[in-house]
């Protein structure tokens, strides 16, 4: 290529100094688009939005059931619970997996920890004060969080690092992730999820535990992220637990 340019690694602002290749690339883009009429605006290029906003009926019970089914299909474990039973379920899951230590983010409802026995060490992450280092987290067995939203159609849980979810690193390093999903956080579809999420927050979408199919296409769970994902699905008292 023969385009003259000024090698520069300095931060550039639009139109600022040292923007050699910026100008060159933009000029090439404009030259390449000679066929586009000068009067055409982006909105003039049609985009039909006649795809569905959701593939499910607007039935909350059905939404929960589909979420449950799809989570299980992606080898997460799902545990329906009433609000009053969350603490007992958390304690049971940590015990079942032999998780002796558990990290929790700030803003997590205290009552979820109420039934943990003395055998479980609870570490509290304090991002503003003394955040836990990666090395420390590497020695922790489990993490307990809430979520921002869950997508039924795809079996996905989305974390946005707000209260009760914490920094992304918390759900990344420990091997066992227990995630509490309230029924009112469940949406049907990807379009509905994006509509309620804030793009300026760091988002992590999780669909089942870490997995790879790189060796002869055999699916293996847990290469680098948590190898176990337990989802506690909380429906309101009195509602029937969702059945897949």
């Amino acid at each position, binding site marked *: 290529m023969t385009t003259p340019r000024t090698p520069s*690694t300095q931060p550039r602002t639009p139109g600022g100094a040292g923007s050699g*290749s910026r100008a060159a690339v933009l000029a*090439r883009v404009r030259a390449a688009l000679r066929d586009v009429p000068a009067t055409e605006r982006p909105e003039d*290029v049609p985009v039909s939005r006649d795809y569905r906003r959701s593939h499910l009926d607007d039935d909350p019970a059905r939404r929960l059931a589909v979420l449950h089914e799809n989570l299980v299909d992606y080898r997460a474990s799902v545990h329906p619970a009433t609000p009053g039973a969350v603490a007992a379920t958390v304690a049971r899951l940590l015990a079942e997996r032999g998780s002796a230590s558990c990290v929790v983010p700030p803003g997590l409802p205290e009552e979820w920890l109420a039934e943990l026995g003395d055998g479980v060490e609870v570490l509290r992450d304090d991002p503003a004060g003394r955040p836990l280092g*990666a090395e420390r987290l590497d020695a922790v067995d489990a993490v307990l969080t809430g979520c921002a939203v869950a997508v039924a159609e795809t079996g996905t849980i989305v974390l946005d690092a707000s209260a009760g979810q914490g920094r992304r690193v918390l759900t990344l390093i420990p091997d066992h992730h227990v995630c509490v999903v309230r029924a009112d956080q469940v949406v049907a579809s*990807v379009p509905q999820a994006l509509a309620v999420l804030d793009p300026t927050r760091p*988002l*992590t979408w999780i669909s089942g535990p870490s*997995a790879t199919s790189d060796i002869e296409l055999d699916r*293996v769970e847990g290469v680098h992220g948590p190898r176990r994902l337990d989802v506690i699905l909380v429906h309101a008292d009195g509602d029937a637990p969702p059945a897949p």
Partner: protein
Amino acid sequence: MPAFPTFPKAAREATGNAQLRHNLRKATGTIRGKRAAVVAELDDWAELRRAGKQIKERTLRHLDTYLEQVEAAVIAAGGTVHWAADAAEANRIVTDLVRATGERDVIKVKSMATQEIGLNEALAEAGITAYETDLAELIVQLGDDRPSHILVPAIHRNRSEVREIFRDRMGEWGRPAPDDLTDEPADLAAAARRHLRERFLSSKVAISGANFLVAETGTAVVVESEGNGRMCLTLPETLISVVGIEKIVPTWADLEVFLQLLPRSSTGERMNPYTSTWTGTTAADGAGDGPGTFHLVLLDNGRTDTLADTVGRQALRCIRCSACLNVCPVYERAGGHAYGSVYPGPIGAILTPQLRGTADPLDASLPYASSLCGACYEVCPVAIDIPEVLVHLRERVVQGDAEHPRAKGHLAERVAMRAARTLLDSPRLLGAAQRAGIATRRLHPGRLPGPGAAWTDTRDLPQFPDESFRDWWARRSAAGEGAPAAPAAPARPTPEAGQTPEAGNAPASGDTPSTTPTSAPEERK
């Protein structure tokens, strides 16, 4: 990049490799089936596909606007934006950025763009080691190998090969493989986990690509399965993302289309295990969540040349799902290495010659690496008419093209066509050539020498008949019929590239979606 053989030569070697063919057949067949099942779950797939195509079309037709928009958004979110006209410049920018941190090691998320520009090699020259963290890329890197598939780059390796590579090479790169390593995939994955964990926890700089870049918000998106992407995007202090300028989507809401199209087309899942999005730096919220320094390198490297071709432009819609590879009969037999590019399969056959030009014989051979069966177009989630672009590029290769000076023309083919024209124009010469061909036919090799070799590498040379049609006609009419007419269908005098009888599935000309967005052809329903 090493010098690659032309597609036909590489394909001939690959098709002789029974293990490779077996692995590929199994892989492509499995993924194909999963894809079909999850696509069938959505009864609005055709509408999603059309929207995906149209959003990308809108972006490409106004790419300058969106590039400026994404730049402003990233800067506003605390990031730094760099522009790279070509591979050398991108490599220089990244190398300088890494040097400025004082680090000698970087961890990498699998990224086609950084493979395209040969970043690892450039960093190595500068004394910086880049560690690939995707399991398949790790296998490729430890094995001194090249990726062969977009999605499953080490699919040409079987489990015992992987075990050998891990045992022999892991120790040179970091934590060695355990002595009792078996060839069970779970065991191999566990070895990779242990090998890479200390690397993740100690690295200060990560390099990634992005699947999407949202113009409106400056948000970058990485879609993955293993968690290595999350590791790279979360743990290091500095993140450098190298992103092709075609990866932009205009708005946050547009992701609703692509986050449905991509995983279902790619791995055949409703959603991939992990998707991470980040907007600039995350230091601003005080949580120290993710990189404190973020550099975005916007990469051209031939993309604007591709954009300039109103037919070929549609290749820039590609979201690298690899669905077209998995349905391609040529890819299934030849394997990814034969394409001599990080972009294999049907998309590679149209993207590589456009990004790199067709001056190189390998790149000029790529538009022929297809049967034009059209299966790739059927599965493409953004409806890229790959057969149309293939045919278009073949024209460019044959003729050379003043508009695209990088397309020098396919020399062997032009020579052959000229020879053929001379022969066909002269009944006397043609007759002599045919008779010479017949007389020497016992001596004919199975393969042609010289510039014709590429053609016979993937085809058997047709047998000459015992007698030419002209001679047969002349003999028959010698009985009193008078002078015979010139034969209508002469034997092919010089079999050459491009003269293959093809199943005609090329779309009608005039069906050029990228030039006429308002009169797009009917979508698959």
